[in-house]
Structure formats: structure tokens, C-alpha cells
């Protein structure tokens, strides 16, 4: 007697094909449900966004350790001065010899700018860095000082009271950006 080989369907129970077919059916069902519900709900989304989303992510937190210093002490110490205010404010008036590096609360200081500043500080031979900003709360000078300290520069301070304290000391001069 000749035995026929056992018949097997193209997709046996252990084959992944029926499983994948079922998965596709579930996904298609979900897709149809999603499109249907979106079409009937009053606050449905357009299928393709055309306007970029205003994404909100927390601002980067500067992390270096810095110390406060008075305007008088900073001027006497002949520190390397950095102006953290916007470029326009720097162009209006700044401390003679101060380098402008505007601090932005929403974006970290560009690495290239921070690297260039670090090189200038090292080449200057100054033993102390004093950063001044708007003197507000928070103070842009203090925040920039933290970033500079975090980049590896030692002995970084920020001037208490910021530009107002330096102006009161008569140290600010009208000028233009370098």
C-alpha cells in the first residue's frame, strides 16, 4: 500500500503568515476607525500638518559654579570682562575692553562662540573672568558666567547689579561693537 504524504496548507498553524495577516487586518481596522472618528469629530486634525508646531522644551540650565563680585572689586582686579547683554545694548555702551557674548535664555551659547571666548581668555593671561549682564532677576551675566565656568574656565565671577552697578561706578563708555 502506498501512503500519500500528509497534506499541509500553504500556511501551517506555526507559520507567521496567518499571524501577520491578522496583524495587518487589525492595523487596517484601526486605521479606518481613526480616520472615521477624525472625520466626524468637530476638532479633527488635518491629515497633513502644514504649519510647524510650536514645541515647548525646557530651557537649558547653565551648570558651572560661579561667585558674585562687586563692580569695584572687579574693576580693581583688572579681570577679563565679558558683556552678556544683547549686541545692541553693547553697541550703545560697554566697559572698555569687554568682549560681547549675548546670553540667550532659550538657547545654549553656540559651542564655537564659547570656544573662541575661552581661547581669548586664556591668551589674555587674566587670572579672573568677570561677566556682567542686565543685572535683573535672573541676571543674564550670572547665567553666562555659569556657562563659561562649565566650559572649563576657572575663577569666573559675575558682577552684582550688572550694568547698572558698572554705570554707577562710571566705568561704562559709549561705543560700537568690535
Amino acid at each position, binding site marked *: 500500500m502506498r501512503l500519500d504524504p500528509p497534506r499541509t496548507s500553504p500556511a501551517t498553524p506555526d507559520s507567521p503568515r496567518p*499571524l*501577520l*495577516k*491578522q*496583524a495587518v*487586518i*487589525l*492595523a487596517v*481596522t*484601526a*486605521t479606518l*476607525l*481613526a*480616520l472615521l*472618528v*477624525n472625520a466626524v469629530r468637530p*476638532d*479633527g*486634525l*488635518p*491629515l*497633513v*500638518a*502644514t504649519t*510647524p*508646531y510650536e*514645541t*515647548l*522644551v*525646557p530651557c537649558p540650565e547653565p551648570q558651572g559654579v560661579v561667585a558674585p563680585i562687586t563692580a569695584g572689586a572687579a574693576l580693581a582686579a583688572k579681570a577679563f570682562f565679558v558683556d552678556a547683554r544683547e549686541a545692541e545694548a553693547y553697541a550703545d555702551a560697554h566697559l572698555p575692553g569687554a568682549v560681547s557674548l549675548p546670553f540667550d535664555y532659550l538657547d545654549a551659547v553656540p559651542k564655537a562662540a564659547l570656544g573662541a571666548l575661552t581661547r581669548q581668555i586664556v591668551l589674555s593671561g587674566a587670572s579672573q573672568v568677570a561677566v556682567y549682564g542686565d543685572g535683573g532677576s535672573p541676571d543674564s551675566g550670572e547665567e553666562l558666567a555659569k556657562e563659561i565656568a562649565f566650559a572649563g574656565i576657572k575663577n569666573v565671577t559675575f558682577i552684582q547689579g550688572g550694568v547698572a552697578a558698572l554705570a554707577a561706578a562710571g566705568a561704562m563708555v559709549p561705543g560700537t561693537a568690535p
Partner: protein
Amino acid sequence: MTESAARLHRRLAVPIRLYLGGVFLWASWHKILDPHGFALDIATYDILPLGLVNLQALLLPWIELVAAGALIAGLWSRAAAVLTCGMMLMFTVALGIALHRGLDTSCGCFASTLEATDPISGWTIARDLLWLGLALYVAAFDRRPWGLEALLFRRKAIS
């Protein structure tokens, strides 16, 4: 595998399947209620091109919901587990990219990224990998599952 081991795996797969179904039901709910918020969450990850953000925000929660329903009901549960595996892989990759970029926000898995809960971390990735493992287990062992499929099969066999 021995018959007793296979039986044990089949029995273990049921509570795992119900747990995964619950997780995905919970995860899908806030996204379905607030598709705009979920689209913003996806945009915050900054991985997909803008043209695909809304489509992803619309389809993904419903795939989660349908997969959750199938897992809980025990109807095509292995296929639902395969879908779940696909989604977990996608979520893990997205979280890995976000973590690598230093995105300091909530993962948006069970609430909007604007809420300060469930921040993206190594823990969220480990959790997703655990769920991926559980989904693979269900896909591999939930044969002749307890649930709707078993009821339908029994009725078919009787009639």
C-alpha cells in the same frame, strides 16, 4: 518543549496579555481624547517630518486601542501582540533618540509631554524593553487562548 511546559506558558501568557492590554488601553486613551496634544508631543520629539506628524498622531492611538482590545478579549491576541511588538520597538527607538539628544521632557506615553510626569530616561527605555519582551512572550505562547477566540472556536466545533 514538553506538553506540561507548553501548558504552563499558555497559562502564563493570559495574565501577561491582560496586563499588556490594560497598559495599551491606558496609553491610548489620552491620545485619542486629545489628538492635537499628541501631535504636539510627536513634533516635540523632532524625528518625523512635519507632513507625517498628524497622521501618526491620528493612527497610532487607535492601533494601540485595537491591539489592547484584542489582547484583553483574547481574539487574535498573538497578532495583537505582534502589533504591540512593532509599536514597542518604535517607541524604544524614539526614546533612545530623544535621550541621546538630551530632550528633557515627559515621554508623552501616558500623558502629554507638557505635564511634568514620566520624564524620558533610561528607566522609560528599560520599561519599554520589558513590555516588548512580554509582547514577544504572548506572541510566542498564547496559543488556543482563553477568551473570545476560544469561545468562538468551541461554538464552531459544537455546531
